């Protein structure tokens, strides 16, 4: 049976309206409701189902970030994950934490915990990077099965259906491997009360990037964050000649 590592990120809840901070250096996060990245929920659900099918033996959830990141680890525990690891990163450094850093952290933990399968969401809904799975696989020199919409585990290999631009692609890859979960992989369960209560007793280990020997110095500088341009209203024109005129004006014809 496989030992599974799931990466979970705390992001602003997708039903909340995003506001840009007045200093234009980021978005407002103070007092705003956060939750687990929806694609990570799908990853957790897949891992829990593997455990229920006795394909996985133990599931560990990892989250990198400030103290509040523990909330999403608790949610993962309430969904059926066995234990959690919180890689504590102070708020200031968290601003510039990138997939390149996270992938190294996940790789180190995977080595320490003798992990066979890493499952993460395909991307986070705040940065839309879609890089962590790929980079983690590269650091570990493991195969990667990204945008997974169906996973079947054989003895020593995985058969994964991937949703790609041209359609569906089915690949086989050896284990250990890194998987990134896509929308249609599964429908995550709700955390139910008995499990929420059980989760309070499950352990969450704490560590720092330094403990893992990972350097998280910033590689980027956030120059500015702005709202997308406001959509201009359409104009109703009286006739075809006016339309042609406007198209010429705009340089479209």
């Amino acid at each position, binding site marked *: 049976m496989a030992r599974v590592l799931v990466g979970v990120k705390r992001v602003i*809840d*997708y*039903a*909340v309206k995003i506001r840009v901070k007045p200093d234009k250096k980021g978005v407002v996060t103070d007092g705003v*409701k956060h*939750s687990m990245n*929806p694609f990570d929920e799908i990853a957790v659900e897949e891992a829990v189902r593997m455990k229920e099918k006795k394909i996985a033996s133990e599931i560990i959830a990892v989250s990198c970030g400030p103290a509040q990141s523990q909330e999403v680890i608790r949610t993962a525990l309430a969904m059926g994950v066995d234990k959690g690891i919180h890689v504590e990163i102070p708020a200031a450094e968290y601003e510039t934490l990138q997939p390149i850093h996270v992938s190294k952290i996940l790789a180190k933990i995977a080595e320490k915990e003798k992990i066979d399968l890493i499952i993460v969401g395909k*991307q986070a*809904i705040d940065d*839309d990077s879609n890089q962590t799975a790929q980079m983690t696989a590269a650091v570990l020199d493991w195969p990667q099965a990204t945008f997974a919409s169906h996973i079947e585990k054989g003895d020593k290999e995985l058969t994964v259906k991937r949703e790609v631009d041209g359609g569906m692609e089915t690949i086989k890859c050896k284990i250990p491997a890194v998987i990134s979960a896509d*929308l249609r992989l599964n*429908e995550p*369960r*709700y*955390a*139910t*009360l*008995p499990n*929420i*209560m059980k989760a309070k007793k499950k352990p969450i280990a704490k560590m720092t990037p330094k403990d893992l020997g990972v350097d998280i110095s910033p590689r980027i500088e956030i120059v500015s964050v702005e709202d997308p341009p406001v959509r201009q209203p359409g104009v109703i024109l009286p006739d075809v000649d006016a339309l042609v005129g406007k198209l010429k004006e705009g340089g479209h014809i």
Partner: protein
Amino acid sequence: MLRKLLTNGHIRCARRFSSSKAIPELTKDRYNVKRGEYSLLTDGHMAFFMNLLGQNRVINDPSECESYNIDWIKNVRGQSRCILKPRTTEEVSKILEFCNENKLAVCPQGGNTGLVGGSVPVFDEIVISTALMNQIESIDEISGVIVCQAGCILENIDQQIGEKGLMVPLDLGAKGSCHIGGNVSTNAGGLRLLRYGNLHGSVLGVEAVKANGEILDCLSTLKKDNTGYHLKHLFIGSEGSLGVVTKVAIQCPTKPKAINMAFLGVESFDSVLTTFRRCKNELGEILSSFELIDALSLDVVTGHYKMQSPIPQFPFYILIETHGSCNEHDEEKLNRFLESAMGDGVVLDGTATNQPSKMKQLWELRESITQGLLMDGYVFKYDLSIPIKEFYAIVDVMNEKIGKDAVRICGYGHIGDSNIHLNLSFKEYSKEMHNKIEPFVYEYTSSLKGSVSAEHGIGFRKSKYVHYSKSPAAINLMQDIKRMMDPNKILNPYKVLPESS
């Protein structure tokens, strides 16, 4: 982009395309109604309206008129050939003055989401649509009082005032389409009445136009004003039969900082009542909604819409929502309540959350039942106020009476307000079933001194049944008031009051 993808999931699509029923029979054919002695629409009349509103705001094309003629649950269909879309109170006034002089019947229409056929014409009444009267005129952040035109969509008001830290005091499944003028005219109830009360309390003032076109300005923004009769109440709940509401002033509560929800599964109706008592005790001031869903009602949305239930199957489900000013306090109260209720075995399973996305999903489970039922076929809907101990008994009674003949007999609703939505769905309409169900349901309700229409109103379909919940003296007085305010009976005829003798 992905955020939009997640919120516009398949559930929303199912909502848009779910009404697959053919158009209903004309009301005049299905029901035994005779057209009143109103004038027929002439070219001269049309010319007046076109002159007043302009060509774009007068609809007379038969296919365009169709959606204004059919109610949301596709039960009734009128034959109006003239839809008017005024922008201002003055335009409504001129329209009514003209119609009154020329004895033309009118049907005021908001979002057309009513469930008793009150919002569409029965014959060829002229529809006065509030769709273009959609301006919020003022928002007072300190007092929480807002003033807006009758055609503002409830959800839009909520979003706009939400930016100023306020919320509308009512919430219902139709909020994306219903107009506040319609809500006020029907005294809509909804999901939060338990906490924020009735519109009679939260509406501070009303501006309405009388049948003769006179503008009645009772648009006060004062919480306390005891200077004479409180006329605004005449228009709250009279369903457009005493005047057309054009503006409202509403006292809006502060938008809560902390919202929590729980979805629970219990074994029996007794457990539901026990849970309710404990909720009131242990959650008290933060409780904002307490809704019941029976197993067959949940099956509507898990079956037709393939929505996910948070917990395994139980005979009854309870949806609880809390509103408060401090999340830590509310979470603690809620968790303590849930731990003790589960520990004692009153609640068998459940989920709790304060994540906006998850709460939205839980509310969708409850709010989509009404629309989902339409996919069963033809639905007989009853909205009853019944003493809380007997609340669910009516479902068992109807099961005994009708049983296997129906596709589904289920009950759900605002148990916190003692208001059950009883639904019996069949593959198609049949007079035989209609007569088996009515007037039995009303007689049963009346025998328990309940209301035959808790919040949906009377409209067209229930005027024969008003007497089950109101005394003859009361009905007589209503008819006196109607005669005084609308002597030509042009406002929303054939509805609300039974035919006077």
